[in-house]
């Protein structure tokens, strides 16, 4: 029995020790001890470096000085000792007399009080006045005495100081040089004391963020994350890699760590905190997926610095019309009509056979199309095509027929049409052959698809056929439209695609009527209406909304026949596979109606990243930063610009094409009322060019959005702008006119009518427009230095700016006293009232004044835009 006691006692003791051992060995405690060792080691190293730095000539010098000072002091020890004695005596006497002075002073103050009291109580101060006078006299005597004694004391002190101060100074010098070492020595003692085998004060460090419902203990191990200087330390001790950029604007005391990184903030082991562990649905986000968290707060924007992937995903979601089927709470596309064209008059536009090929697999017909491929059962494609081909519009055709009758088919039209297509920059949106953008449908083989009647009608008035189309109206003449039609209709393919024209064989002998009726049913049940409007058919498909997709429990998702090795059981992998191949999780009981979009890998990842932002456990409103008025205006403007592909021709915010003017600084340049009307109904600014700003048919919301956008980009006020009102004097206008003529502005600029016989590439914008169009301040800045506003412009700098000052060209020396500022103002004022000139401008396309600097840019223009600068 006693032996049993003994054994059990030993076992209990060992078990208790084991308990302590596991407590000592907890993962985070190990990391904290490691971090403390690291700090001690680094301090040791720093100290060594500081010591190495120390042994320089400067220190040698300071030490020599000290030695010398000490020697001098020792050599004159007697004198020094005597001085010390003298100083002691002098101090003693001085302090004694000075104390006396203080006593007298306080007695005087008391007497003065009594005196004042007497005066106030009406007793005229007879009694104390004598005492006051007496004390005043006493005080001045004593002050004199003390001052004399102080001088003696100072002399005595100076005698000692003579020996002491060089020693002190040398010691201070050495101390200053050794300060780093001393500091590091102290730090080393501290860090070493903390880095013992059984250190004190190991503790869980946490941010308790009640508002966010988070408790983040990450810093328990990532101890150096908020300490700059540890960038090169090994994980987990290194400084946050984005310490300056991200951590500064998102302080962890406010946002914690897991708000952005995900992971289990509570956890105190490495695996539980980072890994994909059971019961924790918010694992650490690696790599690109970390961007999903940006949108928790910055959800209202479509452009966000540092989060390109998720922004691309959001854009894809909008462009591919995912929102047509899948609703997301809070997601609203800018334009609420659907992404695909309205399915009308297709019978008048194309052939049933082409429709069949297209619907069966759009990507083989047009590799870059956004139209997805559906999974059809046999005979379904034929039925849908038959229905669509039955939609006809008889108003299409007469216009083309009339033009055809008038113009006939001439072979030169093809070249003419092709040239016009180039000049109008159709490739800005449409792909034609190898070149062009995929914003709008590819035109490479348009002749296989579309009938010329329809093309003609479309070019003349796109909105008539598709009220919501983004295709703008180019205000083409009948002839222009006809030659383009001729050219486009000639774009036909060979081989496989060539067979797309023509009729179809009746498949299976099904009568056309039942085929059409079946096609109508299918359109409703396949979800075509998510992207296309079809009159007279109602959507019959029920599709789950995507709100909260990222919160989905893994058990809510059906993985079908896939094995965990193929598709890991995470929401991310489920969504990724679903986008790539919608039917991947199909079983006998489940059929996915979703079509295949054939996105490339980076697009899938971007879209996935965006979808993974759809959580209902976002941060509370209070931790988000709302958009300012200006940011909102920019945001809306960017959406409109993207929606209408303005950057196909213009460069906006540094992105886009050089075909049309760069719109940088547009907000500063043009008047908002002019811009509003121009966007509403563009006028051709340079009628001598074929290229022109087309009419996009913007609605009021879009136009005001764009005007506000350009204003916001340049920091201009909106909607009430203010600009300087020119108040020209008679004299000023006269001077302006003189200069205007002298600089030969009209050699390039048009005034009213386009001159004939002048090479059009040398023409510059109409100056009669200035007063309606441009802001007076901008005109001034432009005249002053056009190169500053638009580098590479052919507008000459009329007042050359050389070596820090402006020069007045010699012929203008006498105008307005040769004052450059006044001259510029005069020209500006003249332009603001300029209505054109009576006489014909000189037909000389020669630049008037060629400044020294301007020469280079003029000889070889950096960019040669089709549109020239205003």
């Amino acid at each position, binding site marked *: 029995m006693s032996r049993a006691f003994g054994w*059990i006692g030993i076992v*209990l003791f060992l*078990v208790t020790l084991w308990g302590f051992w596991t407590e000592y060995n907890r993962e985070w405690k190990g990391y904290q001890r490691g971090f403390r060792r690291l700090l001690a080691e680094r301090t040791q190293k720093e100290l060594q470096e500081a010591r190495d730095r120390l042994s320089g000539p400067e220190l040698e010098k300071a030490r020599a000085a000290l030695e010398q000072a000490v020697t001098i002091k020792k050599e004159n020890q007697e004198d020094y000792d005597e001085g010390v004695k003298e100083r002691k005596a002098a101090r003693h006497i001085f302090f004694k007399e000075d104390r006396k002075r203080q006593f007298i002073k306080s007695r005087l103050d008391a007497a003065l009080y009594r005196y004042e009291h007497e005066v106030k109580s009406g007793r005229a101060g007879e009694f104390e006045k004598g005492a006051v006078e007496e004390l005043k006299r006493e005080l001045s005597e004593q002050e004199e005495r003390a001052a004399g004694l102080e001088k003696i004391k100072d002399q005595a002190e100076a005698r000692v100081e003579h020996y002491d101060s060089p020693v002190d100074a040398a010691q201070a010098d050495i101390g200053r040089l050794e300060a780093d070492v001393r500091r590091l020595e102290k730090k080393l003692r501290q860090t070493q004391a903390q880095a013992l085998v059984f250190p004190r004060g190991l503790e869980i460090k946490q941010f308790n963020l009640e508002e966010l419902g988070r408790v983040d203990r990450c810093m328990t191990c990532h101890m150096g994350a908020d300490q700059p200087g540890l960038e090169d330390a090994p994980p987990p001790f290194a400084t946050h890699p984005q310490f300056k950029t991200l951590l500064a604007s998102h302080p962890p005391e406010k946002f914690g760590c897991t708000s952005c990184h995900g992971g289990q903030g509570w956890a105190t082991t490495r695996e539980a905190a980072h890994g994909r562990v059971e019961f924790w649905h918010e694992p650490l986000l690696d790599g690109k997926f970390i961007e999903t968290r940006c949108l928790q707060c910055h959800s209202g924007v479509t452009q966000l610095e540092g989060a390109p992937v998720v922004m691309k995903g959001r854009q894809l979601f909008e462009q591919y019309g995912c929102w047509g089927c899948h609703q997301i709470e809070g997601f609203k596309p800018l334009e609420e009509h659907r992404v695909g064209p309205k399915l009308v008059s297709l019978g008048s536009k194309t052939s049933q056979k082409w429709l069949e090929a297209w619907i069966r697999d759009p990507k083989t017909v047009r590799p870059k199309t956004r139209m997805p491929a559906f999974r059809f059962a046999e005979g379904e494609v034929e039925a849908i095509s038959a229905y669509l081909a039955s939609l006809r519009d008889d108003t299409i055709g007469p216009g083309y027929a009339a033009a055809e009758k008038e113009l006939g088919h001439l072979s030169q039209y093809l070249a003419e049409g092709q040239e016009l297509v180039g000049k109008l920059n159709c490739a800005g949106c449409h792909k034609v052959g190898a070149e062009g953008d995929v914003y709008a449908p590819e035109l490479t083989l348009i002749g296989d698809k579309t009938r010329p009647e329809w093309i003609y009608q479309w070019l003349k008035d796109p909105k008539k056929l598709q009220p919501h189309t983004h295709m703008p109206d180019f205000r083409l003449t009948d002839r222009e439209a006809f030659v383009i039609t001729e050219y486009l209709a000639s774009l036909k393919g060979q081989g496989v695609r060539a067979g797309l024209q023509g009729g179809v064989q009746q498949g299976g002998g099904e009568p056309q009527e039942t085929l059409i009726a079946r096609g109508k049913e299918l359109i409703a049940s396949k979800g075509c209406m998510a992207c296309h409007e079809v009159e007279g058919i109602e959507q019959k498909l029920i599709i789950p909304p995507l709100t909260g997709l990222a919160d989905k429990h893994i058990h809510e998702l059906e993985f079908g026949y896939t094995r965990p090795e193929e598709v890991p059981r995470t929401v991310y992998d489920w969504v990724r596979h679903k986008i790539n191949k919608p039917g991947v999780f199909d079983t006998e009981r489940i059929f996915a109606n979703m079509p295949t979009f054939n996105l490339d890998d980076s697009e899938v990842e971007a879209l996935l990243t965006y979808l993974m932002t759809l959580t209902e456990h976002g941060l509370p409103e209070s931790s988000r930063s709302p958009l300012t008025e200006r940011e909102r205006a920019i945001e809306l403007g960017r959406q409109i610009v993207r929606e209408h592909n303005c950057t196909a021709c213009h460069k906006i915010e540094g992105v886009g094409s050089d075909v049309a003017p760069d719109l940088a600084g547009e907000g500063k340049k043009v008047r908002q009322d002019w811009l509003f009307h121009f966007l509403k109904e563009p006028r051709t600014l340079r009628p001598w060019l074929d290229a022109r700003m087309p009419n996009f048919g913007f609605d009021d919301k879009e136009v005001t959005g764009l005007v506000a956008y350009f204003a916001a980009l340049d920091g201009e006020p909106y909607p009430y702008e203010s600009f300087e009102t020119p108040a020209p004097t008679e004299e000023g206008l006269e001077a302006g006119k003189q200069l205007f003529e002298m600089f030969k502005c009209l050699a390039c600029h048009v005034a009213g009518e386009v001159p004939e016989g002048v090479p059009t590439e040398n023409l510059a914008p109409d100056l009669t427009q200035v007063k309606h169009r441009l802001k007076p301040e901008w005109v001034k800045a432009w005249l002053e230095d056009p190169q500053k506003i638009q580098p590479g412009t052919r507008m000459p700098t009329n007042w050359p700016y050389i070596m820090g000052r402006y020069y007045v060209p010699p012929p203008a020396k006498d105008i307005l006293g040769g004052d450059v500022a006044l001259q510029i103002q005069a020209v500006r004022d003249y332009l603001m009232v300029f209505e054109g000139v009576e006489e014909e401008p000189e037909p000389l396309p020669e630049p008037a004044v060629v400044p020294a600097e301007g020469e280079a840019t003029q000889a070889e223009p950096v960019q040669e835009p089709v549109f020239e600068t205003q």
Partner: protein
Amino acid sequence: MEHFIKILSKPDNIPIAGMVLLVFFYTGWAFVMAIRNDLRIKAGKGPLELEESGLKVDVMPHLLKREFIAALVVTIILVIWSVAVNAPLEEIANPAVTPNPSKAPWYFLGLQEMLVYFDPWLAGVVFPTLIILGLMAIPYLDKNAKGNGYYTLQERPFAIFGFLFGFLILWVAMIFTGTFMRGPGWNFFSPFEPWDVHKVVPLTNVDLSELLDIDPKTPWYVREVPGFLFLLLWFTFIPYVVALVKRAFFAQLGIVRYWVTMFLFLFMLLLPVKMILRWTLNLKYLIVTPWFNI
């Protein structure tokens, strides 16, 4: 097998597995003692406990020493358990999401299992009440004086087997089933089957009246006559037959005790009967009324 081990070794299932083992160990131990005594009684020697009652030792140190060792062993087990096994925390509580499967505390899993076969008012109110009342009534119903202070089987077969059936089969076994064999969706899983949340089982059940092809539109008091008849016969006919067969038993208890005993016993048997009817005939309810279903 790995799935079974996984479920068995879940931190919150460890005590249940231990409890099941302990219950069977002590039941088996009692059986061993009882059989030994039965053999002794048969041989005319009387139970062992009678023989040992004359031998006595001091509490200190003989008992206390053993108790202290037991206390130390339990301490060791608790220390090892608390260090080696982490607390079974699951997801952050979310009022909008119920865990699947949603399980009651282990000691209520027998009741939860009954909910599969009976309406809540029966499984949750009537049955527990009758269980407690029945257990309280046992001393007043039991007139068999034998087996006091010693283990025996032959002298009290009805008491022992009746209790063990209720306790082991209808209570412990149902806790075991509820813990280890009820998976997601409260579906039944055999021990070696992985718990698949998407498991689909046919769950179409019918009422007795439907089994008998009675038009569902007839008034319930006509439609449910067979069910009422079944219950009436269950609680009257069976006791009558048993009384005829087991005359001595009936005579020993007297009519009131006999009927109360039989009522409680038959009520207990309703549970396995309903379970068997469910498995074989897909029976949903015996009686369906606008207010309650049985």
